[in-house]
């Protein structure tokens, strides 16, 4: 069997899910057309904040990733793992963490108060950008770090011995490869941002397209309006993806044995400063979440544990689905697979969920499908991240060992099993970890389908908050974060330990 064949099925599945649900929503709509002036304002805000957030995240990630790539120090592995944390946090938990540092009563305001300065004002455009950078800087760092690690150590040794400019000959080509992809992914994440923009945005100026969809579906019950906005979001994503498709250059790095060797360039002090600042920026809010959550642990009701078990099961199923789809797309390659791998980023969970609801409703009681549908939608939403992680690893595996495999007539599943999967192991672990943790934290569509029991951990947390039980919610948030990170760690670690050569 050709390894490219399943990719077509996977791409078709994804596109049918995306556009089928959109169509299902549109077909239920009353006729109507066009976008209101408020929609255009929302579109402008959405795009501008996403551009600034993505630009800043990537720009800051480059020096941090370089510092991490060339310095080894005790706790580096733990730090890299923890850097994955903010991205995996449920939005509402993360905001509480950020406020503990940047809020009116936060640490920063406290320090400013000592020197007689007024407290920080986090609400507004800059607040939205700050939160998005908090979420996405670690992701950008991990993606770019992956790029650095893909440069064979021998080349750095060679460059160092020749006194050659490493930046120009090794790093810039790698960055030209890694940065557009990272930028696109983060731009698109920020494009569909909803709660962050609304909570920290300071007012209706900070309205995103996703919020407009929410409003159309929930308060106006205007399905047509929601479908049109959903289409705008998909179109935006397609345009951005098409631009990157043209910019991105193929990986020409080749493969070396993945040994780590020291580097001889760059200032130790500057690197330490970058790592230190990034760690402070990302870990202090995390610490605050831990402290507050620990205080609320005693109030957490016992009903949390079945919910935790459900969330973990949903995450595992969702991860398996994500990885199967992502691998199929990556093995296929080409334009169709690229777009099928990117477009889900534009998917509004609300539109997909509503569409699925309309589609399955005539056949089954949606309540029965709450968990499977949640797993499916979470898998769809996590897919782009897995694809971004797997694609370069696949290219490297083929570039390094494709011809050898060809000459040994290793095709089909034998090639996958003996050559590709082992060579992509680290990326597979990282991708699966991301998918699992994202699925844990995602409220997604469960609320629409949920019945009496069957609540997931984020939903349980949200329900606690809705009943004034903020301390118990904080405790639940901590459990959620701990479980997400544990899943991420387990997968990521699984991809690295015992990775022979």
């Amino acid at each position, binding site marked *: 069997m050709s390894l490219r064949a399943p990719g077509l099925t996977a791409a078709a599945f994804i596109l049918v899910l995306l556009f089928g649900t959109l169509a299902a929503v549109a077909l239920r709509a009353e006729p109507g057309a066009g976008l209101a002036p408020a929609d255009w304002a929302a579109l402008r805000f959405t795009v501008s904040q996403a551009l600034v957030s993505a630009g800043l995240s990537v720009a800051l990630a480059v020096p941090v990733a370089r510092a991490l790539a060339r310095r080894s120090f005790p706790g580096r592995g733990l730090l890299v793992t923890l850097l994955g944390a903010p991205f995996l946090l449920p939005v509402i938990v993360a905001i509480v963490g950020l406020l503990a540092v940047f809020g009116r009563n936060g640490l920063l305001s406290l320090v400013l108060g000592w020197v007689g300065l007024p407290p920080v004002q986090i609400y507004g455009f800059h607040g939205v950008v700050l939160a998005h950078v908090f979420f996405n800087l670690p992701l950008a760092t991990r993606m770019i770090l992956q790029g650095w690690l893909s440069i064979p150590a021998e080349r750095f040794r060679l460059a160092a011995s020749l006194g050659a400019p490493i930046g120009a000959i090794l790093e810039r080509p790698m960055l030209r490869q890694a940065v557009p992809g990272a930028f696109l992914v983060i731009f698109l994440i920020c494009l569909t941002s909803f709660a962050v923009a609304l909570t920290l945005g300071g007012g209706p100026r900070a309205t995103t397209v996703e919020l407009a969809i929410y409003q159309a579906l929930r308060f106006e019950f205007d399905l047509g309006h929601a479908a049109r906005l959903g289409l705008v979001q998909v179109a935006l994503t397609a345009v951005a993806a098409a631009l990157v498709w043209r910019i991105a250059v193929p990986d020409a790095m080749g493969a070396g044995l993945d040994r780590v060797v020291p580097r001889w360039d760059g200032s130790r002090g500057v690197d330490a400063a970058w790592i230190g600042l990034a760690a402070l920026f990302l870990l202090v809010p995390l610490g605050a979440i831990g402290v507050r959550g620990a205080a609320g642990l005693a109030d957490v009701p016992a009903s949390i544990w079945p919910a935790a078990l459900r969330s973990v099961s949903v995450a595992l199923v969702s991860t398996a689905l994500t990885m199967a789809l992502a691998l199929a797309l990556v093995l296929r390659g080409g334009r169709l697979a690229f777009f099928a791998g990117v477009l889900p980023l534009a998917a509004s969970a609300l539109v997909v969920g509503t569409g699925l609801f309309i589609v399955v409703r005539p056949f089954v009681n949606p309540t029965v499908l709450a968990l499977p549908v949640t797993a499916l939608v979470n898998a769809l939403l996590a897919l782009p991240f897995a694809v971004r992680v797997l694609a370069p690893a696949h290219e490297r595996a083929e570039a390094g060992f494709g011809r050898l495999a060809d*000459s040994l007539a290793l*095709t089909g599943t034998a090639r996958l099993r003996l050559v590709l999967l082992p060579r992509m192991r680290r990326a597979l672990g990282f991708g699966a970890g991301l998918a699992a943790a994202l699925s844990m934290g995602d409220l997604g569509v469960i609320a629409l389908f949920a019945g009496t029991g069957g609540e997931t951990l984020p939903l349980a947390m949200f329900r606690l908050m809705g009943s004034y039980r903020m301390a118990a919610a904080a405790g639940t948030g901590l459990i959620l974060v701990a479980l997400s990170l544990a899943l991420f760690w387990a997968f990521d670690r699984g991809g690295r330990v015992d990775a022979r050569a």
Partner: protein
Amino acid sequence: MLALEGLRLEQGAFALKADLTVATGAIVALIGPSGAGKSTLLAAIAGFLKPVAGRVLWDGVDLGGLAPGERPVAMLFQEGNLFPHLSVAENIGLALTPRLRLSEAERARVAEVLGRVGLDGLGDRLPGDLSGGQQSRAALARVLLQDRPLVLLDEPFAALGPGLRDEMLALTAEVLGGAGRTLLLVSHEPREAARIAGETIFVAGGRAEAPAPTEALLADPPPALREYLGG
């Protein structure tokens, strides 16, 4: 017999023509300036590069429609001849079957070729745990076990020291030569290659010349080769 009939290869602005035959059982060196197309020619014979025109024939059979693994060809590359995540024995076993679990008989054959290249008892090691010379020997053992009539060597020993390189060339001639195998090997060191290659193909200026006896060619090189050899 290997025959390249009106072969024309192109890669971007680069083009190479070849119209020649190599006798079965011959050991032939490919020499010529860097970038002249020696590796490209091997890639076309191995099936990695589709010719723009012409045919590659083995014993009169056109190899055009065959995938690399289906051709009567074994090949050693400049680097990456072993999968770093598989043990030496597993790597060599791939010459027999894509299953990693070998039968008793297959294991014996792997052990035998390991012995032939002087790697007795190292089958369980990972390639990364071997020295450069040992890695080359392991790769050679795999080619030996593949047992294809045509073997292409694209400077697989370039990274080794001169002494080790000589030793590996000698070992190559010893284990792979004979038994009717035809060897094509790319070399940057014409005089080194001359030691095992009776004939030499000179590749330069967009053309691969027909093989000529190495001794005679080096003793009285045509102008282009003279320029390459630097007198």
